[in-house]
């Protein structure tokens, strides 16, 4: 497996970042491994990290009085978590491993501080995360249409 320093510059999400920024991000990152059923994050807890999934699948779930409902899944190569960048920096949903999962966890507390002192870095990261948010919101809105369930198709 590549080291984090080797992995980050090749990842599309970080494409175009200069070496100093990539080094900074890598310095805030560690590898984490989960087994199926283990939680990467829980609703209401402090959002102190975001993640790049290296292998496996995670379910973004909402708790209900009965079984949790899966809102979305993410897997190899995808970036998970933007609560770290949105006050009050608390996770909105649960993130539960559906399979064996390996991810790079980024220390968001460290990054938030860096973004405050380095606005260009903050803007750059925000632009990347806004695109991620846009993709997720688009997916949710289209699925709200229930295209496969009505008189369509």
């Amino acid at each position: 497996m590549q080291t984090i320093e080797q992995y980050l510059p090749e990842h599309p999400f970080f494409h175009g970042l200069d070496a100093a920024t990539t080094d900074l991000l890598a310095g805030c990152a560690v590898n984490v491994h989960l087994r199926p059923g283990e939680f990467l994050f829980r609703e209401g807890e402090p959002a102190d990290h975001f993640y790049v999934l290296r292998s496996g699948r995670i379910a973004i779930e909402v708790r209900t009085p009965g079984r949790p409902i899966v809102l979305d899944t993410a897997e190899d190569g995808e970036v998970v978590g933007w609560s770290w960048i949105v006050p009050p920096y608390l996770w909105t949903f649960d993130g539960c491993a559906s399979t064996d999962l390996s991810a790079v966890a980024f220390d968001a507390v460290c990054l938030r501080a860096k973004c405050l002192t380095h606005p260009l870095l903050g803007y750059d990261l925000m632009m990347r995360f806004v695109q991620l948010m846009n993709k997720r919101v688009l997916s949710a809105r289209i699925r709200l249409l229930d295209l496969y369930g009505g008189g369509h198709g």
Partner: protein
Amino acid sequence: MGSPGPRGVAGPATLARPDPMLPRPFLVRRTRQDTRDTYTLQLEPADGEPLSWAPGQFIMLHAFGVGEAPISITGDHTRTDRLEHTIRNVGSVTAALIAAAPGTVLGVRGPFGTGWEVATGQGADVVFVAGGIGLAPLRPAILELIGRRADYDRVLLLYGARTPEDILFGDDLRSWAERHGIVVEVTVDNGQHAWRGRVGLVTQLITMAGFDAVPALALVCGPEVMMRYAAQALSGRGVQPERLRLSMERNMKCGVGLCGHCQLRELFLCVDGPVLGYDRLAPLMARAEL
């Protein structure tokens, strides 16, 4: 693909038939329930005469005394002695069709329209993108490809369903993956009921899929909104517009380009479509109120 040039009110295949408005009697051979609201009917010609058709074409299926509906063909096109149709119960005609007992006579007009022409993908990667019951019209193209599997490079089926219970052709999906080397990726909109697979939009699968986009052939079928976003994602990956084909459905009635119910600006989808290239469809799909 439909010719972009001038055309008459009916294509040559239509003109070759004695009367395209006259239904041929077919007998219901058997009916299989696929999901909560979707059934597959197997029909055979009452007169024993085979019916040739191409994957991607549709027929008008008539429940006598109730009405007629455009229905895509689901089966193997080499089996000209029978028709298979996967039908979702969405109204009075489809309710009557799926309730038809074995031996019931139904009327068949057609086949109508253009086909997928999957053979034009030989030597390249082929990507099928299906949404909901849109997998049904793609199934004959997949079966045709499997018949000459070695002629194609990577083959992917990216399929989005409403829930795990709405996934069609589960046995086929397993067989295509395990026996025919097709990469089958499934996602659902709603992942309740202990589903451990993917939840999300089918376009997400396009983003992640491994295929060589520029020479690839991509065939897409599903609700029009889903196809619009899928086409944008495929185009964004680099699939060439003329090799990106969508099956359009717009209230087909006569099937021969006369009545105008299926008109999409200059196109009559029953004869110019239903399968059309994105090079022709992109400007039409981008326009509001068409």
